[in-house]
């Protein structure tokens, strides 16, 4: 935003004169990135949609695909095992996503306030600590938390015991396993969203806050009536990214729970890969991928509609 846009006359000067002369070089410079993204993203995306209407084994070439209309979609939403497993994975992913966003957004704002404030020292230090967890490979996070969560030999239950709380089964019970993976994910990601929140807070004009202070608004009031409303766009962006990140959860499930216990952590990225790659049911897997894509588009569109409605006519 406002990152040194060229001033209008300057823009005018280069615009038309360039149009003829440098078109070809422009395309030459676009070609590598655009070509690679076309081959490795757009074509696979189109193929996913096409394959969702085919019966196809991932072990064979695309030419062996056989058109079956919407049968894959009836199957994955049907009442057979295929359908039950997919719907479980979809529901688990939805729960996982909602829990993740519901924890990450408030925490990112709270931590953002701690980093942003100038009253006490340590803000930048906190940012460094929080953000460095975001650099840790998810596979290492999964390995470490699998030990932290150990019901008997893990430190977390010991801490619970110290403060007089009952031990949790963490990953070993279908009731707590998914939430445990949410916690691990929040731990890893919250630093990224904290930095986004800090960026949003930085944009709030100091004059507005000063005026409110002089008018006698206490810190709580300044937060509730000025900072939070002005963070709207940041929170919307954070929510979108958090949702997209949440549906990608894979490592802890693949490594530790394998979707269990009793399918309670079977999430879509894990399930689609298992069906589409390991079981080589490429058509079914692609139909699931398309369903995930549609669910994401609908969710994010709804989020934007909700945000616009709340912002009101401006």
């Amino acid at each position, binding site marked *: 935003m406002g990152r040194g846009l060229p001033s209008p006359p300057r823009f005018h000067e280069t615009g038309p004169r360039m149009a003829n002369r440098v078109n070809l070089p422009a395309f030459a410079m676009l070609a590598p990135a655009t070509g690679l993204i076309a081959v490795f993203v757009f074509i696979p995306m189109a193929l996913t949609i096409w394959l969702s209407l085919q019966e196809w084994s991932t072990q064979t070439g695309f030419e062996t695909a056989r058109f079956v209309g919407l049968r894959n979609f009836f199957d994955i939403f049907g009442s057979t095992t295929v359908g039950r497993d997919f719907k479980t994975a979809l529901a688990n992913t939805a729960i996982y996503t909602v829990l993740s966003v519901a924890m990450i957004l408030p925490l990112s704002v709270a931590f953002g306030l701690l980093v942003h404030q100038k009253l006490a020292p*340590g803000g930048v230090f906190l940012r460094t*600590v929080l953000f460095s967890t975001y650099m840790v490979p998810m*596979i*290492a996070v999964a390995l470490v*938390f699998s030990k932290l969560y150990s019901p008997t030999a893990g430190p977390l239950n010991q801490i619970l015991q110290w403060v007089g709380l009952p031990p949790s089964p963490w990953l070993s019970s279908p009731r707590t396993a998914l939430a445990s993976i949410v916690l691990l994910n929040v731990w890893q990601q919250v630093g990224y969203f904290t930095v986004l929140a800090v960026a949003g807070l930085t944009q709030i004009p100091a004059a507005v806050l000063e005026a409110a202070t002089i008018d006698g608004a206490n810190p709580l009031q300044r937060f509730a009536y000025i900072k939070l409303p002005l963070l709207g766009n940041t929170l919307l962006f954070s929510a979108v990214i958090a949702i997209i990140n949440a549906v990608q959860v894979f490592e802890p499930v693949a490594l530790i729970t394998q979707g269990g216990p009793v399918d309670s952590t079977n999430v879509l990225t894990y399930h*689609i890969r298992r069906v589409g790659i390991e079981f080589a049911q490429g058509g079914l897997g692609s139909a699931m991928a398309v369903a995930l894509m549609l669910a994401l588009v609908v969710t994010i569109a709804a989020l934007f509609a909700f945000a616009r409605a709340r912002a009101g006519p401006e």
Partner: protein
Amino acid sequence: MSEARAARSALKLRTAPLKAIILILIILVAVVAAFPLAWMVLTSLKTPQETMSIPPVWLPATPNLDAYRKVADVLSLGRSFLNSGIIAVVTTAAVDITSLMAGYAFAKHDFRFRDPLFAVLIATMFLPPIVTLIPLYRIVGYLGLNASLMGVVAPNLANAFGVFLMRQFIKGVPNELIEAARLDGASEIRIAFQIVAPAVLPALAALTLFAFVYYWNSYLWPLTVLEGNTEQYPIVVSLSRLLSYNRGAMNTGLVMAGATLAVLPPVMLFVLLQRFFVDSIVASGLSG
């Protein structure tokens, strides 16, 4: 005026307890955030007996590096690190180059369909990789790259985030600079690498670090495309073998030693160069 001053001095009095509360909160959050990593390092230094004890032992009585020696044997660690290095360095270099070129074209050139093309490219930033994984796996198979490092690298030589980031920053490069080079007869490619690149060096540094960490850490694609060819495994995929190597509790120290080693490169890079990371996140967040 005097009212305002009175309000301010009253504020100062009230802020002392607030300051203490904030400080305590900062310390508390930092401790909780750092705890898993501290536990990881401490456990990697424990004896196997200590890692199994119930209730857990927090500090190793005699810190030792046995687990690191053992994990190096089990995983052919040198090879895994080399693979990770190759994957991260090659993809990062390619992403830098392709993003710089495309970012320059989008920021400083006029051509038909520029804005729609940019919008479509940017949309791929939000596409979860699982959506394209199945056909991508087959396409890379067609190219004969399955089970090889080339297969891991090939689909990642360009990415939309890089193009986006470069365009945002190149927009701020003064047009006079580019025009002057053009008048001197420099080709557009030359302008991109000799005029524009130095002008957006901090952004390029940020992209370099981001891409390096991202590809060093990535798991889903290498796991899928390498098809169990353990020779080619990068370190994060190798790590997953530790759990199947010996499912008993004895290997906890090994697992933690392996995790510590895999965490070091990206975290060290970040700590050294965090300013660039934070700047680029802010840029990507605000301009969306």
